């Protein structure tokens, strides 16, 4: 056993937009875990027989997290979970305060959990890269959605995999400028990365080799496109002037760090909610301008990403607890988005509710003084959603707009959607950290 002198930093690479806000890492000698007591005995009111720690890591949580995290929210706003060695933050104001607090809490990337955090740089925040994605989505989303909806309804009517997932996949392939013959290869390779649970060693090994395969292929593509003036993401990234030239690793990192879940997940959940709330759906079918209200309420009521992890950069006292350096903080979006302190009748899906912000959230997830559903994984809400013309819209806005376009295409064809088997369509998750969404939506053709 040796005391290691060279401490590898766990922090992710600096965010180009973050610049000076990043907190400098303290000297290694200053670090060390304090040994004096920092706790207080819990009182009965802070615990509840309604929730057992095991539940948070069980199939029950995967199937329906809302009851469990709701119990946490009401009994202990910062719950010390020893089973997962984490602190669960569950109230809306607390969750949003952690998510915007880059000074005290760091985000660890997907690559970090696979020990790949030294592989590649996430280029997703560079303006030309964002622009490359926005341009393709704006140009192609409507046509692709139209075609996929028609195709699905011409077959068995399955729109979760057949439209939502496929639309996201096709757009991603187009953004990268991949040859259509390579799309299946790309989707299955990147799927091995994204579908791997943290605990599953075989999936993990497969994910690591998939990363290598992606990086190798992208290496070739970057070389081929370095000189050209293409508008696809790889060409644009190859032209970036960074401290070292962009390589295949960087493109692979950018691809895996881009949130793949919110776009298809939010569409699938919205369609499930519309199908199970025909009264609301009817109003939206009649007035297509209301689709966006449906999406905003869907991501509040049933967010596809139900929790976001942050890690304490240093010891910090919050929510009546001392969070030690390196503490894992799980921000439960599922609990926050149904916090009765913020939203009236929070368990009800109501696109026309008056207490939900109808704009892109800003800063502390609020705009116009109203709270928005927390949608993690798309980057922090911009302080300036009304972006200058030379900048692309935020990822949040792009995901929202594609979802709205695709939903419009579906409603055009089917009116108020009716499901062949609503029970099979009920949202659930398959693994911890995986999306909580509707997986199988067979729409009855009218």
């Amino acid at each position, binding site marked *: 056993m040796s005391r290691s002198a060279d401490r590898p930093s*766990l922090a992710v690479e600096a965010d180009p937009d973050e610049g000076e806000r990043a907190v400098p890492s303290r000297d290694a000698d200053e670090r060390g875990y304090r040994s004096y007591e920092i706790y207080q005995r819990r009182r009965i009111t802070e*615990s509840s027989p309604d929730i057992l720690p095991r539940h948070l890591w069980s199939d029950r949580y995967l199937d329906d997290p809302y009851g469990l995290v709701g119990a946490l929210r009401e009994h202990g706003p910062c719950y*010390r979970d*020893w089973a997962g060695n984490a602190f669960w933050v569950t109230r809306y104001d607390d969750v949003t305060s952690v998510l915007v607090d880059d000074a005290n809490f760091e985000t660890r990337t997907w690559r970090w959990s696979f020990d790949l955090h030294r592989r590649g740089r996430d280029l997703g925040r560079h303006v030309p890269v964002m622009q490359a994605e926005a341009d393709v989505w704006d140009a192609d989303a409507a046509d692709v959605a139209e075609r996929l909806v028609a195709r699905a309804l011409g077959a068995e009517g399955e729109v979760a995999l057949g439209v939502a997932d496929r639309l996201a996949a096709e757009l991603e392939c187009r953004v990268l400028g991949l040859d259509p013959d390579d799309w299946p290869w790309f989707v299955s390779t990147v*799927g091995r990365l994204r579908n791997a649970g943290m605990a599953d060693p*075989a*999936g993990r*090994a497969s994910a690591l080799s998939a990363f290598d395969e992606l990086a190798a292929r992208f290496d070739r593509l970057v070389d081929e496109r370095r000189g050209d003036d293409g508008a696809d993401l790889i060409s644009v990234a190859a032209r970036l002037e960074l401290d070292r030239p962009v390589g295949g690793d960087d493109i692979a990192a950018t691809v895996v760090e881009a949130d793949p879940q919110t776009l298809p997940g939010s569409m699938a959940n919205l369609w499930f909610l519309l199908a199970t709330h025909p009264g609301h759906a009817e109003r939206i079918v009649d007035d297509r301008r209301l689709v966006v209200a449906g999406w905003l309420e869907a991501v509040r009521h049933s967010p596809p990403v139900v929790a976001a992890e942050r890690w304490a950069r240093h010891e910090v006292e919050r929510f009546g607890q001392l969070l030690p350096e*390196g503490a894992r903080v799980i921000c439960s979006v599922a609990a926050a988005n149904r916090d009765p302190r913020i939203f009236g009748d929070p368990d009800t899906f109501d696109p026309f509710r008056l207490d939900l912000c109808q704009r892109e959230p800003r800063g502390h997830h609020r705009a116009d003084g109203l709270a928005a559903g927390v949608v993690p994984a798309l980057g922090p809400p911009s302080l300036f959603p009304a972006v200058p013309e030379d900048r692309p819209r935020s990822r949040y806005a792009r995901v929202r707009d594609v979802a709205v376009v695709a939903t419009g295409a579906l409603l055009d064809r089917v009116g108020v959607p009716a499901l062949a088997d609503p029970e099979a369509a009920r949202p659930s998750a*398959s693994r911890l950290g995986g999306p909580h969404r509707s997986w199988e939506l067979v729409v009855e053709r009218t």
Partner: protein
Amino acid sequence: MVGAADPLDVALAEGRRAERARLDVPLQPLGTAYDMGTAPDGTPLFDARIFSTREFQRNPYPYYRILQDHYPVFHDVQHNAYYVTRFEDVTACYFDEAGFNTIPKGSSSGVLGNTQLELSGIEHRRRRNIYGRHLIGKALDRRLFAIRELADELIERFAGPEPADFVHVDPATGRRTIELGQAFANEFPIRVVCQVLGIPDDAQDRFFWWYSAMMRGLGGSDTAHEGITARQDLEDYVTELVELRRREPGHLIDDGGEIIGLDIISELCRSEIDGAVMSTEEITSNIALIVGGGGETTRGAILNLWYLLLQHPEQFATVVADPDRFLQAFHEALRHSSSVGGQPRQNSHEITLHGVTIPAGSLIHMVDFAANHDERVFEEPERFDIDRVDLYWEKLLRSGYDSEGRRNHMAFGVGPHLCPGAWISQQETVVGSQVLAERITEVRIEAERMPTDIDGSLAPIGTGAIRELWISFEPITS
């Protein structure tokens, strides 16, 4: 499925199947691990989700063996913790008081309150020394008569001429059937502890609930709420007693009626830490620690010992013929199946162990279960054998034991945080078992009342202690 022939749809559907797969582990034959896959270089893979399966609870050792052989420091990313499983590593970590803080802050205090469990160094020693000496050495030897008396009193209820209501007597044969926990093991350890604490007999009915609930509620476990409730109830009860003992100290006496010293609560009332007497809250926390630590663990030790001995009749016959050998059997039972699985630790600074770098402040599980079944130390570790030559079982040593091929077991830990109740627990189990063996004969496990394994045999102990032990016997009439 739309357009199944379309390669992109096929790729998406394939990804979906992988995404939707959950881990489902069928129960395996004992000693065989479920196949979690193999790395290209032949190393068996380890899926941390196994820890929460029923299969692991009953059949943990083949999985610990994979960790010991291939992942001596295992990082469980999902549960944000590390596991140390080899005997040598666990020993080194337990002795490294500067490098490893004790139980992570707050993990047990939710139930117990502010106790020495979560302290290190001088702060730990000051508190521990206040009552540690009551549980050890001469003070303990002078109390052995009381332990024996208590055992006699309890055993009389089911082995005496007038069996209590909970004893089932077969009218034809006269054989008696009891659940050993209910009849003896649940109550015996705590009555011993009550005496040294100086708690009156009237509270003893609630003690089983207090200690079992508090013990099960530690570490933020599933029963944390029940543990906190029990702790509150204990606090409500002892607050008055503590105030009384501040004014009128109670004493422990030996069999000659001579005063040995103050009982533990009176000692706590009188003691000062850093120049100030302890608050009632602090004293209650210490009582909770003694009650929790002194009850459940010894209950489990007695039941596990008898369960193992009765499944090995020739070894049982040996200890009955020579009751002094119950000591050896006690230690082998603890090595084979102890009631406490291990201790969590947090490292004070970053360490690198077996090539794994553990950042400061990480949660590290020292797995005593695994260390006790480490093939590097104990030959054929799954074999229960009171005659084994590689286990040291004599005088309990804080330093551990490593000489002439014999090692201590890890059930009490080693080093500064060695279980302070180890000595008294040993006396309770050994003396209690000796008295029991003097009073009952022809003892058999009532197999049809016990849980069974997949092959129909008696269920293995697995992790933790058995809950119930149904036995039938014939009383020895003197």
